[in-house]
């Protein structure tokens, strides 16, 4: 069950948006398709939805080969970045749209729409028009509209991309909780690694039309398959040419055997975190320390120090 994408290729003219991509989205999971802009993640989502036709490959939704099915018959819910609200309909009519297309009885539609509006906390806005709603409210309406038809899978294309930072954080926590309540297989596209790590069970990293790695947030962060995934998912610095996370490094003063020798170039205090740049023979290394560690070492610019990888629980 869930979604299975196998060997999908999609070209736009000479541009290869998806290059032989295979992805498994487990049933009931909340999966993030994460990657830089233009990497192919939105195209993959649209191929799953049937809004784009792949040049090659197979899309399987809940055990049905859906490659040739139009979006109308895929039993999906789709949420667009810019909401795609039906502007001439009230919030109620927007959410009721899929059910009224399916010619459900009036009483049933009213009951279901009311439930959904309560689920997304906009029941008091049922008679408003989308233009009278805030961005966050519109996106919740779009989500309720997509859920109304009880889709097999829910697909969200940068659902919080058009919202400001505060609303964005609220909504993603809320999406996580909503998913825990309704358990529908969900895939969402994002270019924000923090958002993906915060919300998703599974992250699929996509760049240049290929899947770079699939795994849980911890797997991707701690054992990235390559430099790209490593640098995309978190801060990276280089120690003797090797990529390493700045918070996995420690500073020893004075320098000892086994540590790379250098001297402190600058110390920047960012609240709780202290950023220390150390000049070594192989260039500058950025080390992230806690305030307590930095104070204990009493670091000042020019002081000779050693840098080494700290013993970490997952190495």
């Amino acid at each position, binding site marked *: 069950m869930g979604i299975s994408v196998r060997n999908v290729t999609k070209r736009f003219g000479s541009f290869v948006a998806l290059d032989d991509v295979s992805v498994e989205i487990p049933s009931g999971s909340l999966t993030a398709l994460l990657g830089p802009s233009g990497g192919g993640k939105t195209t993959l989502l649209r191929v799953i939805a049937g809004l784009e036709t792949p040049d090659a490959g197979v899309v399987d939704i809940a055990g049905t080969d859906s490659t040739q099915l139009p979006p109308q018959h895929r039993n999906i819910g789709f949420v667009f970045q810019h909401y795609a609200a039906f502007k001439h309909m009230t919030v109620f009519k927007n959410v009721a749209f*899929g059910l009224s297309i399916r010619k459900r009885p009036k009483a049933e539609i009213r009951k279901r729409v009311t439930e959904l509006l309560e689920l997304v906390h906009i029941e008091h806005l049922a008679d408003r028009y989308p233009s009278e709603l805030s961005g966050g409210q519109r996106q919740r309406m779009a989500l309720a509209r997509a859920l109304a038809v009880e889709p097999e899978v829910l697909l969200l294309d940068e659902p919080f991309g058009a919202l400001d930072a505060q609303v964005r954080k609220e909504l993603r926590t809320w999406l996580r909780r909503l998913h825990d309540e309704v358990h529908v297989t969900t895939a969402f596209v994002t270019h924000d690694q923090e958002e993906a790590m915060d919300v998703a069970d599974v992250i699929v990293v996509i760049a240049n039309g290929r899947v770079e790695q699939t795994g849980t947030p911890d797997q991707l962060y701690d054992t990235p398959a390559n430099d790209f995934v490593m640098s995309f998912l978190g801060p990276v610095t280089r120690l003797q040419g090797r990529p390493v996370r700045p918070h996995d490094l420690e500073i020893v003063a004075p320098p000892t055997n086994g540590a790379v020798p250098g001297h402190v170039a600058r110390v920047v205090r960012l609240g709780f975190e202290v950023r220390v740049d150390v000049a070594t023979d192989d260039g500058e290394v950025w080390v992230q320390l806690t305030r307590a560690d930095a104070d204990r070492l009493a670091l000042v610019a020019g002081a000779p120090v050693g840098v080494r990888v700290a013993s970490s629980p997952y190495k």
Partner: protein
Amino acid sequence: MADGRRTTASRLGLRVVALAYVGIILLLPVGLLFWRTFAHGIGPVWDQITTPSAAHAFRVTGIVAFWTVLGNTIFGLGTAILLVRHRFPGKRLLSAFVDMPLAVSPVVVGLALILVYGPKTWTGSWLADHGIEVIFSIPGMVIATIFVSLPFVVREVAPVLEEIGDEQEQAAWTLGASKLQTFRRVTLPAIRWALGYGVVLTLARALGEYGAVAVVSGNVIDKTQTATLYVSAAYQNFDTKGAYAVAFALAAVAILALVVLNLVRPEERT
């Protein structure tokens, strides 16, 4: 302060110029037409526009306008959707062709149609053999009027389609709506005012068309004479009262349609 005053002054100047321009070019002639028409009250005007020939001319204009509006509404919607929502070779060419009627003189359109459908042409004689007369009858006049009023619906609807984008339509598909349901319940409501405006402009143009119709109709009184041809003929026969009365009635219908549309159209929502 000085800045503010200058802005106010220049804004006032602009307003005066714009109003004067519209006044002299547009309102003055239409106003005078109105005044001349009703110089002797409503009774004589009514008599003039209900003479058998005038009434017949109105009926011919009505028939031609009806088919033109019908044809160009369907064609205009289809073309606008094609131009905005689809990619195909020759798209720019089609777009250019849609504007051609604005560039070509209606008289030229009429002559061109005679070259295609005239009695001595291959097409014309073939159609005549099958009992269809195009030139000097209603079909030819409809074709000519469709030709000259072709761009209005397309050019009103296309920008609005462009602006609303295709995401609402795609959302409707994912919710299970067929293409036809999506058009009826999502696209059409979004473009209805633009479509209404295009239809009214088409209607106004169809009511007022003179040049192309003059060439293809043959201007036969009580047969193929439209209201505009009637006005011209009456004026040339020194029947100025008849000419003014019918001209006024024609203008009134078109202006009324525009005014009504503007009144019922709600303030644009964003």
